[in-house]
C-alpha cells in the first residue's frame, strides 16, 4: 500500500519536472494530492491492518494514514488555490515566472517527504525525512525571492536543524539502550514499543528530552518557536497553509509516538507528562501575549498556530485516553482551520497587496468570502460552540482540571487573551475605511478551496460521525492506549 503512495509521488515529481505549462503542472499536482488523499482515506475507512514495506522500515498504521489523509486534503486544496494565486503573485512581481516549476517540484517533493516521515517505522528515518521536510519547506518559502524570505527560511533551517542535532544525540542514546538491553540495536517503533518497558529510566528520560527538543522545534513550541511566525508569514499563503497544518504536525506526530513509548514505565511517563504539560502551557502563554500586539494578519495566524501546538502538546502530556483522543481529533481539525485562515489571508493579499492591519479595511464590502473564512477560522480556534474546537477544548480542559485546578484557570485565562486578540484584529480589518479601493475579482480556483474548507469545518463542528470516533479509537489502540 505504501508503495502506491510513493509511486504516485515520484511519478508526480517526475512529470512536473518535464517542461510543461503552469496549468499542466498544476493539474498533475492536483491529481497527485487527490490520489494520496483518497488512498489514505480508503485505508482509514477500511481499518486495514498495519502494513509493512522495505524490511519493515516503512509501515502504515491508522495514525500514519490519518496524518497522510489530512495532509493530502490540505495539499490538494492548496494546489487548487495555487492556480489563481500564483498568477496574482507573478503579476505583482513577487514570484518570478521561472520559479513556478521549482515551486511545483518542491511542493510535490514536500508531500512525498511528509508521507515518508509519517510512514517511517524507524525513528532514524523519521528524523531524516523530518529534516527533508524542513529543507523543502524552506525552498518553498524562498520561492518568493525577497530578502526577508531568505532570512526567514534561513532562520527556519538553522533553528530546526540545530535542535534536530540534539534529537540525533537522543536517538543514538536510545539506540544504544536497545543494544545493551536486548543485544539487538534498533530504532523501529514497533520494537521500541515492546522494549521501552525495561529501559533504565534515567537514560531514557535524557534521551526523551533530547529527542523532544528537536521535534518541539519542528512543531514550533516556545522557546524554539521564533522561526515560525517569520517563516509562515513570509511564505506565499498557500504554502503557509501547508506549513501551518501539515509540516508542523510532523513534530507533534513524533511527540505522540515518543510519548507512547514512555507509557509502560511509570517513572519516565510522569516526567515526560510533566515536561509536555509545562511546555504546552508556556507555549500557549507566550503565543497568546504575542498575538495581542500583532499588526500583521499572517503573523497573527502563525502565532495562533504556535498556540494550537501548545494546546496539542498539553493534551498529549495529560496522558489520559480522553485527552489523547481529542488531541488526535484536534490535530486534524487544527490543520483544516489553519488552511482555511491562511487561504483567506491569501485572498486578502490578492485584494490589498498587503497583510498589514493598517492597510486592510472594509473587508466585508470587498472580499466577503475571505472575511467569512477568517471569522469562521477565528471563531473555531477560540472554541465557539458548534465549531470543531469546542468539544476537544472542553474535554482537554476538563482533563486538565482533574490534574490541577490552578493550571486550568491559567489556561482558560490565556484562551480568553487569544480570543480577545482575534476579536481586536478582525474588528479592525472588517471596519470600513475612508477610501475604498477597487474590488478585485477573485478567480474561481481561489474561491473553491476556501468554500470547501468552510463547509468541512462547519460540518465537523455540527456532526461527529461514529466512524471518526472509531478511527480515533483504533489509533489509540495501536499506540498502546487501550480503551
Amino acid at each position, binding site marked *: 500500500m505504501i508503495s502506491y503512495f510513493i509511486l504516485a509521488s515520484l511519478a508526480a515529481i517526475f512529470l512536473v519536472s518535464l517542461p510543461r505549462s503552469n496549468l499542466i503542472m498544476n493539474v498533475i499536482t492536483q491529481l497527485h494530492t487527490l490520489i494520496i488523499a483518497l488512498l489514505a482515506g480508503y485505508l482509514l475507512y477500511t481499518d486495514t491492518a498495519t502494513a509493512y514495506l522495505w524490511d519493515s522500515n516503512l509501515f502504515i498504521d491508522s495514525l500514519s494514514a490519518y496524518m497522510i489523509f489530512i495532509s493530502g486534503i490540505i495539499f490538494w486544496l492548496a494546489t487548487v488555490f495555487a492556480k489563481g494565486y500564483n498568477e496574482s503573485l507573478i503579476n*505583482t*512581481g*513577487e514570484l*518570478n515566472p521561472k520559479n513556478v516549476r521549482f515551486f511545483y517540484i518542491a511542493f510535490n517533493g514536500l508531500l512525498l517527504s511528509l508521507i515518508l516521515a509519517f510512514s517511517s517505522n524507524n525513528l*532514524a*528515518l523519521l528524523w*531524516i525525512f523530518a*529534516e*527533508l521536510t524542513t*529543507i523543502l519547506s*524552506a*525552498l518553498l518559502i*524562498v520561492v*518568493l*525571492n*525577497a*530578502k526577508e524570505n*531568505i*532570512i526567514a*527560511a*534561513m532562520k527556519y*533551517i*538553522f533553528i530546526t*536543524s*540545530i535542535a534536530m*542535532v*540534539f534529537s*540525533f*544525540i537522543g536517538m*543514538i*542514546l536510545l*539506540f*544504544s*539502550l536497545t*543494544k*545493551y538491553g536486548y543485544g539487538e*540495536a534498533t530504532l523501529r517503533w514497533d520494537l521500541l514499543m515492546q522494549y521501552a518497558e525495561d529501559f*533504565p529510566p*534515567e*537514560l531514557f528520560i*535524557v534521551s526523551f528530552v533530547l529527542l523532544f527538543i528537536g521535534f518541539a522545534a519542528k512543531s514550533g513550541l516556545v522557546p524554539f518557536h521564533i522561526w515560525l511566525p517569520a517563516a509562515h508569514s513570509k511564505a506565499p499563503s498557500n504554502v503557509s497553509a501547508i506549513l501551518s497544518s501539515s509540516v508542523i504536525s510532523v513534530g507533534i506526530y513524533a511527540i505522540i509516538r515518543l510519548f507512547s513509548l514512555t507509557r509502560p514505565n511509570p517513572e519516565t511517563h510522569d516526567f515526560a507528562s510533566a515536561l509536555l504539560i509545562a511546555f504546552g502551557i508556556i507555549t500557549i502563554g507566550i503565543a497568546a501575549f504575542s498575538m495581542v500586539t500583532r499588526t500583521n494578519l499572517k503573523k497573527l495566524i502563525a502565532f495562533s498556530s504556535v498556540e494550537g501546538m501548545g494546546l496539542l502538546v498539553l493534551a498529549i502530556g495529560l496522558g489520559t485516553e480522553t485527552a489523547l483522543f481529542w488531541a488526535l481529533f484536534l490535530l486534524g481539525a487544527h490543520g483544516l482551520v489553519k488552511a482555511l485562515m491562511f487561504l483567506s489571508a491569501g485572498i486578502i493579499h490578492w485584494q490589498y*497587496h498587503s497583510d498589514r492591519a493598517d492597510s486592510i479595511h472594509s473587508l466585508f464590502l470587498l472580499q466577503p468570502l475571505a472575511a467569512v473564512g477568517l471569522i469562521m477560522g477565528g471563531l473555531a480556534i477560540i472554541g465557539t460552540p458548534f465549531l470543531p474546537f469546542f468539544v476537544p477544548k472542553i474535554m482537554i480542559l476538563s482533563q486538565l482540571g482533574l490534574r490541577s485546578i490552578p493550571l486550568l484557570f491559567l489556561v482558560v485565562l490565556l484562551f480568553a487573551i487569544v480570543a480577545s486578540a482575534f476579536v481586536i484584529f478582525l474588528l479592525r480589518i472588517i471596519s470600513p475605511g475612508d477610501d475604498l479601493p477597487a474590488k478585485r475579482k477573485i478567480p474561481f480556483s481561489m474561491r473553491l478551496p476556501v468554500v470547501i474548507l468552510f463547509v468541512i469545518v462547519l460540518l465537523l463542528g455540527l456532526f461527529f460521525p461514529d466512524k471518526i470516533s472509531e478511527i480515533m479509537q483504533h489509533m489509540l489502540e495501536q499506540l498502546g492506549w487501550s480503551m
Partner: protein
Amino acid sequence: MISDSLLEGALKALLVLIVISALLLLTRKNVLSLFRSYALQSLLLAFIAVVLYVQERKIELLFTVVLTVISKVILIPFFLGRVQQKISIKRDAEFRYIKPVAAVILSTAIIVIIYAVFAPLLRILPVTEIFILGSVIGISMTFMGLIVCYSRKRVITKVIGYLTMENGVVLFGIFLIELPFLIEMFVIMDILMVVMITAIMSFGMNASVEEFHVHLKSLRQWFKEEDASK
C-alpha cells in the same frame, strides 16, 4: 599486535586534539582558516574511527571513516571554499554576546559540567571509561558548535558551527555505538543538503542589491501603477 594501552593513549591524544580544533573554530576570524580547522577536525574524527576499528574490528566504523573523509574532509570544505570565493568574505570578526575568550572559558565549563552530569548516567551502560570520555567530549563539542552558531553573525560561519555540532554527534555516536551504514549515509546526505542550501542562500543574503533586481524592479513598477491610478 598493538597493545591496548597504546591505542588508548592514541585515543586520548586524538580527543585532546579534537577539542583544540573545536576551540580554534570558536576563536578564528579568518574564514578560510575556519574551513581548514573544520577539515582538520573531520580528519581527526576519521583517525579516531580508525583507531576504534583497530581496537574493535567493527566494519561499520570503516564506513564512518570513508564517509567522513569523502564528505567532511574533501567535499564540504571544497564546496564552502567555492561559495566563499563567490561571496568574497575574507574575515568574520563580528562576535555577538559571547567574545572568543569567554567562549573558550565557557567551553571548558561545558566539558566539566557534562562530565559531571552525564558520565554517571552513561556508566549504567556496559562501556569502558575511555568510551565515556569520548562520548562526553562529543556532546561538549556539540555545545561548542552551538556557541559558534549563536555568537557569529555571518551565515557561512554559522554553517561551520552547525557542522561542528554534527561532528560532535558523530564522535558521540562512534564511541557509544556504531550506527548502521544506511542511516549514516542518509544523515550525510542531509547535512550536505543543509550546507548547500544555506550556503547558496547566504550568497543571496550577502550579495548586493542587484541580486534581487527582478523582485525590486517589478515592485517598483507596481508602485508606479498605483501612483498612476491615483
